């Protein structure tokens, strides 16, 4: 029961929390935040679980990096659309 598994388990908790937030929240911004949180949880599992198995592993770390960049881009795009939507009179918390 190494620290890495704890990371993973914490990741699981984060995921669970953000799932709750993502579904229950109405405001689109909150949802976006939940998404980002959930990403962190997933990345924690991604790194934690393999490292729990056989020590430091560069591969999941690289994957997480990629994942982060993708998540950032997606978040940025989501923000752009969200802002445009709100400015065109849309309700951000339908």
């Amino acid at each position: 029961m190494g620290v890495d598994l704890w990371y993973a388990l914490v990741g699981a908790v984060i995921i669970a929390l953000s799932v709750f937030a993502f579904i229950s929240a109405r405001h689109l911004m909150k949802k976006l935040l939940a998404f980002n949180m959930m990403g962190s949880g997933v990345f924690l599992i991604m790194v934690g679980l393999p490292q729990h198995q056989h020590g430091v592993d560069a591969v999941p770390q690289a994957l997480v990096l990629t994942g982060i960049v993708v998540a950032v881009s997606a978040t940025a795009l989501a923000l752009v659309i969200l802002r445009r939507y709100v400015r065109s009179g849309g309700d951000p918390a339908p």
Partner: protein
Amino acid sequence: MIPILLIIPLAFAILSLLLPRKWTRTIVIPGLILQLGAALILCLTIYTEGPQDYALGDWQAPLGISLLADGFTVTLLALTALIAALCAIYALFFLERYNREQFYFWPLFWFLLASLNGIWLAADLFNLYVGLELLGLSAVGMVALTSERPALKAALDYLYAALFGSLAYLAGVALIYGAYGTLAIPQLSEMVAGNITTQVAVALMSVGLLLKTAIFPLHFWLPPAHGGALAPVSALLSALVVKASFYILALIWLDVGALAVTVSAAQLMGALGAGAILWGSWNAFKTPQVKMLVAYSTVAQLGYLMMLFPLAIGVSEAAATMAWQGTILHLLAHAFAKAAMFLSVGTLVLAIGHGRIADLGGVSQHMPMALFAFGLSAVSLMGLPPSGGFNAKWLLLQSAIQSGQWHWFVVIAGGGLLTAAYVFRIFRVSFTETVRHEIQATHPMLQLSALLLAFIAIGLGFASEWPLRLMDLTGGGTP
């Protein structure tokens, strides 16, 4: 050879981003021809030489990433190239009225194409994730292109669903990597056992992919997104994009996680499919907007794809093969038919300036070809012969008979009638002679490309053997 299919769209994406506006349009056709040619050549190669894999950067899997081209893959590649080509030709003329949108449309279009090709060819779970994200973002970008409020809302919903789905998928991938230490699909499919970790991983990935595929009851985002986008975008989305996540789903259930999935889970998937058929058809029957009708039809038709799982899992090999073949055919036929349908409906809406079904009267006089294309594609969607849709339905029915799953037999057979119920709403109205609107002239190519797609959907009814024979190249019933 194989990466050419990625390079072409990526290169053209860059070109269309950087070249002056007038060039953007000019390079579309050469690009499409190249793409189509490459896909066909690859088809031939695979057909003559058998499945191939390609180690990118010369790093063998699992360290590196491989591309895998088997019969199924090349079929999908060819499908993508063909549909994309026709949609692009349509878009060339359609977007003439959308000056600003058309500039950003093309880079996104090419990226979409690249991501689709990437997904078909991928043999790595994480690479699939990146592909899915690329696909999702470019699709969302295209949906939001008009910057109108409904479109933006639809794009947001779509984006959130896509992102949430991708993350769920990624969580599953993380578990799989944690449990097996590799991401290469061929390797995984030999190793994966039916333990709890795998099952949870498969469940997570399935939820994510179901959301992205818009399977009932996770379909809420699809109708506004597909119904609200520009016609060529809708066509691409409905015809190809949702199929990508379904493809991955099938890959996971039938190949990677074949030992981890249970028959009852497969039945549950079937039940979702049945729900999709019913719910989608019902909503299509109720909606007052013609594009929404087509979009809900996609929801319903995706339900048929889900029949693959109950029909192919836990049954005899013959039945599974038939289910698989039927699903492929349905995928192809629906892709062509739905693209044709969206394009024709798009033409109608463009010409009459609105999409209210009740006021479509008199269209048949002015736009017979568009309506005819709609009709032909409807034939395929209803699963009436002769059409690819019919052959697909036939194979699914045969598979249900073979495995004695009569409940699915009833669903599949009855689904066609539901489809007919909403499709004929359009015909019914279009035959009335009361004209309540000005009809603007549209470029004939718009109608023609829709018609061509529809003809392919019908022609697939006579040429089903080709894709099926290509598909056999994988050996067994799975990719």
